[in-house]
C-alpha cells in the first residue's frame, strides 16, 4: 500500500526474548517500582480538614453586594443578564418607595434576582458587566444537592449580609473576617 503521508511509523513487533518470556525479571522490576512508591510523598490531601488554597482569580458562587450603609447596590439594569453567555440570570425590577430608601441605593431595584447555578459557567462576565459593582464572584462553590430546584439561587441566597446588623458575617463574606476581628478588638481596647 502506498503511504499517504511520510509520517507513517512501522511498528516492529519482535518476538519476546527469553528473558521477557520468563516474565519474572520484569515483574520484579515492576514490584520494585511499586514498592518505591510506598515511600513517596503523597499528593492527596485530607480534603474537608485540609483545603488547597484557591488562586486569587478563582471564580465561585456569586454574591450581591451592599454599600457601606447596608443598601443593596443592584439597580436591576439587566446588563449582567445580557452579558451572561449561559443565560443564567433572571430578574424582576421594582420601583423603590419613599420608605425604602434605607434598603436600596437606587430608585429602581431588583425585586427578584435569580441565578441558575446549573446553567452558570462561572465565567465572571456578569461581574465585569455590572455598572454598580453589585455582583461579585466569591471563592466558594455551589454545594451538592439533590434537586435541580435547589440550584436556583434567589436573592436570600445571594445577598451579602448587612454590614450594620451582621458585621461579622459581612466581613466573612468579603473574606476579611480576620482583619475585621483584629479591627474590632483594637476598637474595644481603646
Amino acid at each position, binding site marked *: 500500500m502506498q503511504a499517504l503521508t511520510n509520517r507513517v511509523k512501522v511498528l516492529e513487533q519482535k518476538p519476546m526474548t527469553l528473558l521477557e518470556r520468563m*516474565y*519474572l525479571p520484569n*515483574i520484579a522490576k*515492576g*514490584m520494585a*517500582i*511499586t*514498592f518505591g*512508591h*510506598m515511600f*513517596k*510523598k*503523597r*499528593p*492527596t490531601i*485530607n480534603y474537608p480538614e485540609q483545603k488547597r488554597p484557591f488562586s486569587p482569580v478563582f471564580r465561585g458562587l456569586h454574591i450581591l453586594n451592599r454599600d457601606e450603609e447596608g443598601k443593596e447596590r443592584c439597580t436591576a439594569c439587566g446588563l449582567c443578564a445580557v452579558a451572561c453567555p449561559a443565560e443564567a440570570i433572571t430578574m424582576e425590577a421594582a420601583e423603590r418607595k419613599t420608605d425604602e430608601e434605607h434598603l436600596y441605593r437606587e430608585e429602581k431595584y431588583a425585586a427578584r434576582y435569580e441565578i441558575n447555578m446549573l446553567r452558570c459557567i462561572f465565567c465572571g462576565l456578569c461581574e465585569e458587566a455590572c455598572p454598580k459593582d453589585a455582583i461579585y464572584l466569591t471563592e466558594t462553590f455551589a454545594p451538592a444537592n439533590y434537586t435541580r430546584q435547589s440550584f436556583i439561587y434567589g436573592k436570600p441566597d445571594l445577598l451579602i449580609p448587612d454590614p450594620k446588623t451582621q458585621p461579622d458575617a459581612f466581613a466573612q463574606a468579603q473574606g476579611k473576617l480576620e482583619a475585621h476581628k483584629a479591627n474590632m478588638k483594637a476598637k474595644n481596647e481603646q
Partner: protein
Amino acid sequence: MILAFDTLLFLEKFILIVVVILAALGIALYTTFAERKVAGIIQDRRGPNRAGPFGLLQPLADGIKMIMKEEIIPLTSNKWLFILGPNLAMITAMMTSAVIPWGNKVELFGRVIDLQIADINIGVLYIFGVVSMGVYGIMIGGWASNNKFSLLAAIRGASQIISYELAMGLSLIALLMYTGSLSMKTIVEQQMSTGVWNFFVQPLGFLLFIVCAFAECNRTPFDLPEAENELNFGYHQEYSSMKLGFYLFAEYINMIISSAVMATLYFGGYDIPFVNEAALSASWGVNIVAVLGTLTLLAKIVFFLFVFMWVRWTIPRFRYDQLMDLGWKKMIPLALINMLITGAVILWLNK
C-alpha cells in the same frame, strides 16, 4: 466395638475450630481493609481513613453495608444452586484450615493440646482435595446465575484452576520426595529440627507453588474469572448482599490459607528463625514458646498476604491464551524438571 469418646478432646478441638474460624474471619475482614490501604499507599493515595481512627472501622462499615443490601435471586436462576454456590466457596475456603498446624503444643489444665485441628497423615493431599472443591463454588455460582458472562467466567475459572492445580501438584511432589511425609506437622517439625527451611532446598518448587497459588486464589495477574472489563464482574455478577460478600470473603480466606500453606510447607511454619525452640521451651516454658511460634506463623502469613497485594497492584492481568500457555507449556514442564532433578539428587545422595 465401642469407640472411646473423649469428651475433653472433643471440647478442645471444638474450641480450637471456633477460634481458628473466628480468627480467619477476623483476619479476612482486615485483609480487605489492608488491601485497600496497600493499594492506596502503592498508588500514592491514602486509602480508607474516615471510619474510626486510621479508618480501622472501615471493614465493619463494609460488612454492615453488605448485610443491609437487598438480597436478590434472579428469576431465571436455578435457585438452590444459586444459594449453594457462595456457601460452597465459603465452606471449602474454611475447611482447609483444619490441617494447618497453627502452633506447637501448649499445656493447659494438665493437658497437652495440639494447636492443630487434625494432624492427619495425608494433610497435603487433604488440602489439595478441598482446594479443588473450591472451584465448584465458582462453577455452580456462575452456572446457576443463568447469565452468559457469569457462565464464561465460571468456565474460565474452572479451566484455569485445573491447569494450575497440575503444576502445583507436581511442584509439591518434589517437596514431598524431600520430606518423605504428607503430614503438615511432620513437615514443620523436620524444618525445625534441621533448621533449614524447605524454601532453601526447593527454591524453584516454591516459585512454581506461589505462582500456582496466585492462580488458585484468582488473584491478579490470574484474576480472569473476575475480569471486570471483559466479563462485567465475572461469576458473581448476579449476586448481591451477603452472598456476594461470601464470594469476596472466600477469596480473602483462600489467600490467608494459601499464605499459611506456603509458610508451613516452605518457610518453617511456626518455627522461629535462628532460635532453638527446644532449648527455649526448657527455660521459658512450653506455652510461651508455642504462643511465640504462632505469632511467628502469623507474621509469615501477613508477609505473604502483603506479597499477594503487592503483586495485585503491580502486574496487569494476563490474556487468557497467555495464561493457558504459561500454565501448560511452562509451569508444568518446569515442575516436571524440578521433580526429576530432585529425585535424581535424592537418589544420588542416598547411594
